[in-house]
């Protein structure tokens, strides 16, 4: 948090260090290193980085169908006619979509919740993109809903909540197989483990 050992840092440099320090996992020392790295970059590359940040903030929206982040709505996955509309895979966040896409074993659609039910943090179903999921299921010909939340307590709670909601609905609800370690996350799992978990999914 502090730049006191840089008494003479120019104000604009100090500001950059301060901003980088706000990023997750970046402490004051790393923030300094990154700032000096950016200063040494050729102008063009540094401006590219700044422009990329600004473009992301200007162009990224939620896909109205799957709630993934996208700059075209609907996103490329939802817009792709090759993908089957009969399966929807529910994940916690956009990085999980990337992880599952890398396995190349899934050809349906996704639904991104942008979080999990976390009672201890006051995050309930209302704060997630669940309110978009249930109407979406009511209006389509989805046959299988694959719940691929992380195998953590909160991921499981979210999965149970979805299953309870769909009790009696005419949709098969499945769950990724237990190959994934409890407490782990999809994002950190390798592709082989992930595709095994996918193929071995079980009815919830």
């Amino acid at each position: 948090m502090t730049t006191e050992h840089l008494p003479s840092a120019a104000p604009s440099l100090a500001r950059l260090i301060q901003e980088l320090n706000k990023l997750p996992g970046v402490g004051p020392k790393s923030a300094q290193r990154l700032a000096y790295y950016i200063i040494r970059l050729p102008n063009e590359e540094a401006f590219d980085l700044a422009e990329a940040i600004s473009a992301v903030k200007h162009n990224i929206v939620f896909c109205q169908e799957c709630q993934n982040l996208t700059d075209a709505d609907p996103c490329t996955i939802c817009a792709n006619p090759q993908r089957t509309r009969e399966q929807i895979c529910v994940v916690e966040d956009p990085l999980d979509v990337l992880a599952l896409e890398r396995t190349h074993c899934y050809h349906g659609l996704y639904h991104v919740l942008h979080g999990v039910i976390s009672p201890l943090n006051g995050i309930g179903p209302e704060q997630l993109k669940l309110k978009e999921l249930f109407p979406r299921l009511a209006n389509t010909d989805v046959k299988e809903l694959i719940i691929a939340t992380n195998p953590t307590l909160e991921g499981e709670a979210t999965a149970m909540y979805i299953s309870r909601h769909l009790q009696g609905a005419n949709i098969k609800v499945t769950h990724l197989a237990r190959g994934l370690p409890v407490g782990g996350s999809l994002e950190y799992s390798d592709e082989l483990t992930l595709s095994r978990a996918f193929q071995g999914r079980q009815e919830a």
Partner: protein
Amino acid sequence: MPPPKTYRAEGLVLKNIPFGEADLLVTLYSREFGKLKAVAKGARRSNSKIVGHFEPLTVAKLSMARGRTLDIVNQVEVTENFSSLKSDLTTLARGLYVAELVDGFGSEASSNQQLYDLAIETLGAIQQHPSWELVLRRFELHLMRASGFMPELFHCVDCRKPLEPEQHRFSPDAGGTLCLDCAPYGVQIRSLSLRALKVLRLLHRSRIADLPQLQAHESLEQEVKSLLSTAISYWMDKEIRTNSFLNHLERLPKAEVSS
């Protein structure tokens, strides 16, 4: 007394938050040292041997090293993870409510074995008897007792006279029951039915196994629940977050009872 440089403890995981690149900052309530915060290195890596050991509502034996600011977990062995409690939404939500209150009432670096035992016993009972709502009511009352905030149930907290039957009210901030003549300035005062007072007194001295004999009418249970909840909120002095999920679940259509 603060723990020594390296130490062993048995503790219940209350919560965890991501810390650094792959670590977890874990809050535990330990039998030996009260509330502890410790870093579990690498606990978020899927290939880590300890992944999942620090989920809330896990009981573990730990070996720890004191750090300058935060303690580090060296070894961990899970002894109980309440897996069937965690496989049902309602019992899970109740368990997390217990964890949140233990976090709120427990203090750091001060052991309270009564509180620890109460938490473990309550989680076991929620798991074993999912339909006994009074388990939570008993927990709330005994939590206040174990933390030194037990509401008075036999005398008027103002004039100290023993309560006459059917002549009393309740004030969480004045510390319990009041007679009809006393109204201390500036405190919240609620009505208290004789039946609810009796339930509170019974809860106070009951063991968990006695609870089925205490099953009360829905309206009476609601009164007891609301009285205890004002007292708990008063001492907790911050929002109880798990309440909103518990209430949300109550409004959902009931799940078919699972085996």
